[in-house]
């Protein structure tokens, strides 16, 4: 039942739902590979890295990756549509600055936070508008807004760093659930993760997101509102980035223009490591979560070994390259063996991918 027959077939034809048995579809995936790798690394660290099994490890690990994890959720959907958002870290910076200034201006933290979220939404919406309705390539647009939003953050706060925040709130950011050592903020993260997971994989909106990534013109002909979908996704990306910014302020108790500089690359690295295709149309959220955790665990273990930023950089880089190389290497091998169709398995023949459909026509 797993082979296509070219025979002319009898009219009343029925089909198998799947070409491959269940276990294959579950086990032979990028996501499973990443999760397996994650588990392996954790086990290895448990045994070989001093203090990795300590109670503080989990807490700090989760606290550290929270911003990346948060932003990775909308970023995944953005990349699945074949677009990309490089401005997220700048939005984080901007929102920390806003919270700082507004709070210093006498507003309560919740009010300041809400305003910051609105600002984040605005930033995201601007990206979305330029990409979806003006039809600009998101890579270029968000390189621009990366500079713009960071510039606003630095410009607004100038030399100062606002560091006066009520302990009540700063403590909340690092509070733990009971004595589990798991940060309270993880509840929020979990809720959002589930929400995004359902949205992407179990709604027709999510199906539309994948269609856009694979063939946005066909999606349009099928009644998917491509522009609106992208606007929504970029706006989500802005809001969640602002949320991460609020967390940033509260955790570090300091609002600075240069907060979270360079975070966007870590997020994208994690998302791609999680098995999302930069060309769009492919990826699953649980893989992304695993990717973020993997980067966090590796970093934490290496730091415990007293290894500093440079080696960690190298390893993140290697992970990233390996993660994207692996499928094409496999394809290349089966290419050699089964002499597969080159064009079927050749990403580089496809354009750089980031929103190229919009980039070309429309």
């Amino acid at each position, binding site marked *: 039942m797993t082979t*296509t027959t*070219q025979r*002319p077939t009898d009219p009343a034809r029925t089909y198998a*739902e799947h*070409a491959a048995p269940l276990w294959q579809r579950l086990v032979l995936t990028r996501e499973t590979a990443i999760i397996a790798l994650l588990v392996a690394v954790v086990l290895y660290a448990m045994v070989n890295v001093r203090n990795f099994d300590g109670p503080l490890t989990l807490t700090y690990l989760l606290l550290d990756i929270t911003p990346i994890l948060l932003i990775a959720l909308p970023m995944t959907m953005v990349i699945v549509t074949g677009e990309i958002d490089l401005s997220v870290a700048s939005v984080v910076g901007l929102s920390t600055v806003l919270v700082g200034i507004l709070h210093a201006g006498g507003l309560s933290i919740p009010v300041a936070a809400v305003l910051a979220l609105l600002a984040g939404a605005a930033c995201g919406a601007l990206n979305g508008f330029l990409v979806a309705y003006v039809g600009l390539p998101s890579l270029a647009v968000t390189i621009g807004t990366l500079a713009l939003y960071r510039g606003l953050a630095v410009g607004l706060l100038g030399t100062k760093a606002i560091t006066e925040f009520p302990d009540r709130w700063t403590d909340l950011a690092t509070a733990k659930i009971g004595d589990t050592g798991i940060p309270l903020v993880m509840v929020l993260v979990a809720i959002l993760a589930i929400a995004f997971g359902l949205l992407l994989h179990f709604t027709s909106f999510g199906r539309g997101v994948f269609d856009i990534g694979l*063939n946005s*013109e066909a*999606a349009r002909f099928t009644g998917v509102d491509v522009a609106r979908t992208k606007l929504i996704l970029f706006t989500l990306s802005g809001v969640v980035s602002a949320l991460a910014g609020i967390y940033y302020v509260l955790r570090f108790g300091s609002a600075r223009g240069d907060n979270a500089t360079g975070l966007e690359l870590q997020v994208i690295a994690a998302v791609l490591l999680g098995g999302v295709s930069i060309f769009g149309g492919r990826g699953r959220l649980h893989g992304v979560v695993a990717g973020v955790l993997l980067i966090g665990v590796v970093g934490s273990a290496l730091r415990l070994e007293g290894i500093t930023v440079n080696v960690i950089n190298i390893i993140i880089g290697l992970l990233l390259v390996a993660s994207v190389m692996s499928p094409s290497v496999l394809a290349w091998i089966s290419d050699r063996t089964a002499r597969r169709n*080159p064009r079927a398995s050749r990403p580089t023949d496809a354009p750089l991918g980031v929103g190229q459909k919009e980039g070309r026509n429309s």
Partner: protein
Amino acid sequence: MATAHADAVLELRDVSKSFGQVAALRSGSIRVTPRSIHALVGENGAGKSTLVKIVAGVHRRDGGEMLLEGESVDFHSTAESKARGIAVIYQEPTLFPDLSVTENIFMGRQPLTTGRRIDRSAMYDEAQALFDRLGVHIDPRRPAEGLSIADQQIIEIAKAISLDAKVLIMDEPTAALSGVEVERLFTVARSLRDEGRGLVFISHRFDEVFALCDQITVMRDGQYIDTLTTADTDVDQIVSLMVGREVGDLFPKTAAELGEPVLQVRDLTMTGVFHDISFEVRAGEIVGLAGLVGAGRSEIARAIFGVDRYESGVVTMDGIAIPGHDPRSAIRSGMAFIPEDRRKQGLVTQASVAHNVSAAVRSRLSRWGFLTSGAESRAAGPWAGRLEVKTGALDMDAATMSGGNQQKVVIAKWLATDPRLLIIDEPTRGIDVGTKAEVHRLLSQLAGEGMAILMISSELPEVLGMADRVLVVCEGRLTADIPRAEATPENVMRAATRTTEGVR
């Protein structure tokens, strides 16, 4: 004239090729002699394009033999086959939109001045010469972007003949061409033959095959069936060889009694594209939209369905005006639109059959806002079955299907929405007679069930055979509205070309 005994310039023996578990080509054989035009015919998915791509070096064969002028060859890249004097026109035009048409033709082999600088003016002159030979008026310096499909095909042809190759292979070059352009192409092809080259011509239009070719090789299901000399065979024999069974009437049109107007279009206008388009389609009626390629028929259809915007005019379904530039409300109002380019517009080829077939009805399938792939498959299965889509399982990618099968998937997808109006653009472009008859039967059956159908087609026989009423578009304007009884090839063509005397 060619004789089958002359030694072949290109010969394939039992060549095979599989993509994963899909056996695209089982035993492809063909023997092309110089001074002859050799037709390659077969149903969709018979393996014609695959065979072509193996000769071109796009794919590498898994087995079998390929002889070029008697010596065995195995191309790793299209560059190699080119270097050996094989020119190919692929089924889909492959142009570089940002570059001038001239650069598209001479890329990689531009004439050089001393100092290896490209000699642009010489290049443009050569291009001009080519176009003159093809009798077309395309400015050699204009960008390829914005060319009509027909002109793109012309550029491909110019590209191929400029190579002055020993073997010229054309994979459905005429699919997008109007009669005039086809004739010009044939003239060139014949002169190339008489220069002593071997040509391979792939087409689903038998009139063309018989008008042009010396031999005909028939393929079915990736297998070589037979090679006949055109002189001593006829359409019926070819068809039965191709299909392996008897096909019934090609245009099984049953007269349906017309109901209320379903679609009404009033003064639809988009500057530079179409102007003052007004017509209506009644329940049970098949309205044919005829005209030359590039007349703007597809554009009109796209505007009605809402994928393109229009400046002024009204579109109403069952008397209710629907907002412009909004496919969703068009679908909600009961419209379905099967576009002309199924790979780019009709399907998400890298998605599964189930995903594609259920794409237009997803929102209805979701429960409490949630959608599962199980629900998709359950909805898709019956429709795929009704259209006899050839696929192993519902989660196979549509990419692995041949044109005909992909078209069936697109039709299934739209029938699943249970539409009141079906707009179908080039329903049988690049589709074999077998499937063609099926599609036509389906259309008239749907009309019989009271569905309103707007059918765009560049094939006159199809329009005349299927339509209750023929609307003719010329340069973005309706130039005729002819009832079935009075429609003849002559009056339709006259309306289609009325204002185009002198232009091309």
